[in-house]
């Protein structure tokens, strides 16, 4: 029986301090107050002073409340019984079902040995040309959707989840609006995917500390399924809330802030989560698709900035479309060489021309006369936006490629495309 401590010496923010012995760094404790029980995690040791972060928040905690150390770090139950279930940030059921206690696993485990990783090679087909053709998503990739608040990022996420060929979908919701939570639930239910999904949802009204646990708990479960040979897709929305929770805690802990109030280890903290994306040799894989809302549409804000350096590319969602500029899938080179011979070259050529279209558009808006070339570009840009960028377009990659050639032929002569002659000879549509 472990000792119970009943003198809390300080309460600041969500952090309480007690004097205790034999406590280990990262250990869990249970704090019982008038308002119920909450878990708390040891985040600092100094002589016999133990600082704990209370998951449910410190509101209503009295200096006389009981703290009981559990002797183990944060854990979550892992079994097939998780499938189809919905939990909160500390792993308690949110769907009214029974609490799961068997086969407990630690969360936030060590990282994968780079020598055991393999080169990703399987494309995840989504039916969205801006993804499949221009920035292919690859199994085991970690990729965020950069967007401003108000864009349909959650519907996009749900759509990719439904269409992607994966075994298990894990949704980690952080600071999710209740409506959005219901949206995910309904969409997956209607698509018949709920039975292979697991939700860990922290809603905007839940205690902030639980928000921090969501990625760890989701990824720990994902890792176990992947080791059992499952292909797992983890959706994390919205990582900006996670980073803001980190900031809140860091400031309460009186850490020196580095950039706009965010802690200096923001990069490492985000990386520790995103780097869980992996393809295990001889087992399954984890693919992470996140959402990072950019405060003030500013990509240089510390959260999107640090995220961009960690993830393998990003999709910019703007005005309901995936922007071709800035959007990037770093791993596309791994898969688009094996799709079709023209995939890479066509992708580059079409984007270059679209960039030229943007320039012409700018010139036009400034009132300059349009040259013949400008007019060609304007025509091209309009078709490109309609047939490629619109998110409602849902076609397989091969068809998207064919459409690409058709669009080029409609607008330009062969030389104007800048494509290599051998490809033009093979793929240029004959009228």
């Amino acid at each position, binding site marked *: 029986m472990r000792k119970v401590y009943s003198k809390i010496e300080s309460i600041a923010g969500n952090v309480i301090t007690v004097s205790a012995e034999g406590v*280990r760094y990262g250990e869990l404790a249970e704090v019982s107050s008038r308002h119920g029980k909450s878990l708390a995690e040891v985040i600092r040791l*100094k002589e016999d002073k133990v600082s704990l972060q209370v998951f449910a928040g410190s509101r209503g905690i009295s200096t006389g409340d009981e703290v009981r150390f559990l002797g183990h770090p944060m854990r979550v139950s892992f079994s097939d019984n998780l499938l189809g279930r919905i939990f909160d940030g500390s792993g308690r059921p949110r769907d009214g079902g029974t609490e799961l206690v068997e086969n407990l696993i630690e969360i936030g*485990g060590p990282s994968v040995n*780079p020598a055991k990783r393999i*080169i990703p090679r399987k494309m995840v087909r989504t039916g969205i040309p801006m993804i499949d053709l221009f920035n292919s998503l690859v199994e085991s990739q970690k990729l965020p959707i950069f967007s401003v608040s108000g864009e349909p990022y959650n519907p996009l996420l749900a759509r990719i989840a439904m269409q992607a060929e994966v075994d298990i979908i894990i949704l980690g919701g952080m600071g999710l609006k209740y409506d959005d939570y219901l949206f995910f639930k309904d969409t997956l239910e209607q698509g018949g995917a709920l039975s292979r999904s697991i939700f860990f949802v922290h809603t905007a009204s839940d205690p902030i500390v639980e928000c921090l646990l969501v990625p760890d708990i989701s990824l720990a479960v994902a890792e176990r399924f992947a080791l059992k040979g499952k292909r797992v897709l983890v959706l994390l929305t919205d990582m900006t809330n996670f980073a803001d929770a980190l900031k809140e805690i860091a400031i309460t802990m009186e850490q020196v802030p580095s950039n706009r109030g965010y802690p*200096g280890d923001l990069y490492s903290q985000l990386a*520790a989560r995103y780097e869980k994306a992996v393809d295990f040799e001889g087992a399954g894989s984890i693919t992470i698709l996140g959402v990072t809302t950019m405060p003030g549409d500013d990509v240089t804000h510390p959260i999107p900035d640090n995220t961009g350096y960690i993830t393998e590319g990003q999709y910019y969602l703007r005005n309901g479309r995936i922007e071709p500029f800035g959007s990037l899938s770093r791993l596309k080179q791994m898969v688009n060489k094996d799709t079709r011979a023209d995939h890479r070259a066509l992708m580059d050529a079409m984007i270059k021309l679209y960039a030229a279209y943007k320039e012409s558009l700018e010139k036009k808006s400034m009132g300059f006369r349009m040259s013949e070339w400008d007019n060609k570009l304007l025509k091209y840009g309009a078709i490109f936006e309609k047939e490629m960028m619109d998110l409602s377009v849902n076609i397989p990659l091969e068809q998207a490629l064919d459409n690409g050639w058709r669009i080029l032929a409609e607008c330009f002569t062969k030389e*104007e495309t*800048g494509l290599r002659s051998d490809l033009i000879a093979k793929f240029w549509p004959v009228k």
Partner: protein
Amino acid sequence: MTETKGRVVGVNGNMVTVAFDGLVTMNEVAYVVVGEKKLKSEVIRIRGNLADLQVFEITRGIGVNDPVEFTGELLSVRLGPGLLQQIYDGLQNPLPELAEKCGFFLERGVYLSPLSEKKTWAFTPTVKVGDVVQRGDAVGTVPEGIFKHRIMVPFSFLDTYTVKSILPSGDYRITDTVAELVDSKGNIHPITMSFEWPVKRPITAYAERLRPDKPMVTKIRIIDTFIPVALGGTYCIPGPFGAGKTVLQQVTSRNAEVDIVIIAACGERAGEVVDTLKEFPLLIDPRTGRTLMERTVIICNTSSMPVAARESSVYTAVTIAEYYRQMGLHVLLLADSTSRWAQAMREMSGRLEEIPGEEAFPAYLESVIASFYERAGIVRLRDGSIGSVTIGGTVSPAGGNFEEPVTQATLKVVGAFHGLSRERSDARKYPAIHPLESWSKYKGSVNKEMTEYGRDILFRGNDVAQMMKVVGEEGTSLEDYIVYLKSEFLDDVYLQQDSFDPVDAAVSTERQQYVYNLIFDVLSTIFNLESKEEARKYFNQLRQKFRDWNGTEWESEEFAGKEKEIRTLIAEKKKGTEELALEILKKVSGS
């Protein structure tokens, strides 16, 4: 282990505070004992009887009163034959062996020998009994791949020594004593084929440091021709995310004309290391006919691995680089990314509650960065051979803003700056090195005046492009418009390079010189073009032909054929040549 006893009194993130009795050395290695595990750490501050340690592992589970053991040794790497082809973490733990032992995950507290102690090496002595030697002098060699690995007098031997005994040729293990040396006081020192050296101390066992004046060929046109790097020089690649820093580093690590490449993947994505890891053993280096892996060492401390080890990983890498330089080899160290290394320092500084400098980086950031890059250099060894360490570091500036502290501190000390631009990468212009903002203080392999001429066209073309945004195409004179087209042409067919095309990915110096001559011809030609429309069409044709030419094998029949087509096309519209260009050509042919 020293006599000093310590016990944990505080834990905060990866910093542990230890109360000790006895002597403690700054930066010595200590082990925190947690149950069965011993966690490696480094002393980073001493105050009274309290020492602050940064732990190179996850600190979960450490409790107050856990014992701490002190070693008295500074953080060191083990040097000897067998370093090549290895994949180490930041503390020189071999990752493949670790994987064999622990499986998929990096288990903490497991430290394996960095070099195989079972493997034997064919030793050939190069000294005889009675010879006088100093630190860094070879006593023998062993073959390591295509290199002659020198077995040297350890660099910590500061005296002059007489060889007392030396083993004859034969197969020995790295732990075998190969020679005995007698110092000036008559003490006998046995030496083996390997020894340790503290990572944060530069190796200076050479005769003299030279000025870097030979180019290091990267086979990337924009670099070799316009912003070259020298053997023994330093350069940095700052750029926002997604601009292609890592691809550029990977391409360089493949194609650079150096003997040995050391890749320090410091705090970046694990996936990127995997590419190198899995591909290098299969890729053949055309210069040696052996796989690229045989000339490579990978130090890999990716972003999710413990932060403290990230800080030491760049030092581990540069120490191994300096070691091979002592054998008269040219070594290239690629550090990706130095910003993550700086951030590791920042995290630790924050935990130590030091007064923060700009953006919370520690005040000593600049001096630490400067002393790291200063470890590069080309040197003459005591036996007259020349070796070099070239350092290329990427910088990941927050928000892509080059004004931030790490970029600025780096720019002060490097010899070349390859700035990547988001604009260029968005427009898929790779490598996205900005040709106007980047600079180099080194000498390249193409005539300087000819490249300056090209750069001038780029500047002028850029001016015209800016102007055209304001006054429109119709407000631009035909002459200016052609300058603009020439600058676009130079950019399209020469500065941009397709790193995924088998031929275009690596362009030899000879080919660069040859092709640039023709480019120079285009740039300096006064064309007989009547209208902007005609000019645009003409340059489109020219671009198309050049691009196809870039894809043909050097000196092949196809190459000659395409070249002829291009020359004909130029001749069709050639009216004359610019004055200035003629003068340059006269000088070039005269010299």
